[in-house]
């Protein structure tokens, strides 16, 4: 049992290490701004943080189950993900950024949604955090691939735990991001409340998030599609 506890701690620690290493920095900044942007409503910040974590857990969990069961070889899966996911990440983020910046109207039907419906659509927006968690978890870079495929998976195989340890790794990778999102989102909320500018500040938080998404998207497209080394 003690030794399993060690495995549990190592899995969380490896996750935190992955998250604070330099290469996922760009996606982490995008995630922080996305989670923290609904600062007028702390409940929504909390929920999107939680959904982001669940998304990451689910992605690593599925990879963990596949690899511990030996259904696919580690090199094949690692190279497949590194070669393919990063390529599509850029365009996906740019498109998401276009919608966040409201350059294109979301109600394409033209006649506009009722106020109540619009509220619903915005609530669905927090599910974006879940999708973001999955995609960002799967976009491996050399360091995160080394820590996940080289350290976490051997650990999971050793304890025969394709379920718990990869999930804990997912929690570890999202902890620093969620913490920063809360700190930035909630402190901005406090300041803007003092100046009575909550609605305006939230609008700007959304726009800044949109700009960050477009910039990170451009960065990924230039590096992984146009192969320009930055």
């Amino acid at each position, binding site marked *: 049992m003690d030794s399993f506890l060690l495995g549990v701690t190592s899995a969380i620690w490896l996750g935190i290490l992955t998250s604070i*290493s*330099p*290469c996922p920095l760009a996606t982490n900044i995008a995630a922080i701004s996305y989670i923290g942007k609904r600062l007028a409503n702390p409940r929504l910040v909390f929920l999107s943080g939680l959904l982001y974590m669940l998304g990451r857990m689910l992605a690593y969990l599925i990879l963990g189950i596949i690899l511990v069961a030996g259904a696919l*070889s*580690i*090199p094949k899966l*690692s*190279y497949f993900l*590194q070669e393919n996911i990063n*390529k599509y990440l*850029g*365009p996906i983020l*740019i*498109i998401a950024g*276009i919608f966040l910046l409201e*350059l*294109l109207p979301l109600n394409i039907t033209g006649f506009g949604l009722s106020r109540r419906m619009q509220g619903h659509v915005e609530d669905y927006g927090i599910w974006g955090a879940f999708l973001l968690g999955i995609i960002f978890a799967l976009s491996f*870079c*050399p*360091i995160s*691939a*080394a*820590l996940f*495929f*080289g*350290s976490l998976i051997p650990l999971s195989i050793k304890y025969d735990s394709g379920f718990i340890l990869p999930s804990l790794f997912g929690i570890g990778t999202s902890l620093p991001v969620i913490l920063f999102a809360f700190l930035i989102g909630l402190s901005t909320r406090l300041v803007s409340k003092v100046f009575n500018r909550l609605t305006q500040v939230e609008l700007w938080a959304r726009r800044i998030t949109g700009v960050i998404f*477009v910039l990170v998207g*451009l960065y990924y*497209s230039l*590096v*992984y*599609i*146009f*192969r320009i*080394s930055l």
Partner: protein
Amino acid sequence: MKLKAVTITVFVMFLLASAVCLGQEANKQDINQEEKIETKEILDTITTVKDSIETDGIPEQLHKVIAYYFHGSRRCSSCRKIEAYSQEAIEQGFANELEEGKLEWIVINTDLPQNKRFIEDYQLYTKSLIISKVENGKQIEWKDLEKVWELLRNKKAFLKYVQDEVRALLGEN
């Protein structure tokens, strides 16, 4: 309003260019598959030529250790650092062995079609440093020095780790 339209147009054009670039790449991969067999034949010839050249300079040893650094076409800063530290560890610690041909330092790009086989051979999942022991021209043992990623922030420990591992493999010669 004008600004909005211009921004949208720029983004759409960028996305289209990305799609075209991705499409071309997919095409290229198909062609690569076809050319693979041809490349292999050429490569075999090159290897034969290379072998004969090597025997002129550094003596070709039947018993030796090879240190491989595997990387991709995209080079990240941490990956370059690992390569530089590994090379330094080997050149500093084993100048004599390198000269005698008892130790070889080889850098390989696994993104090139002719080098893909190394991914399966050494179970690679990222940029890696592998040391391999060859006896009578045949590999008998190899090790993935996976701790290089953990020791990246501690150069002294990194050099010592690589040198200790290489020495252990050489020592059994």
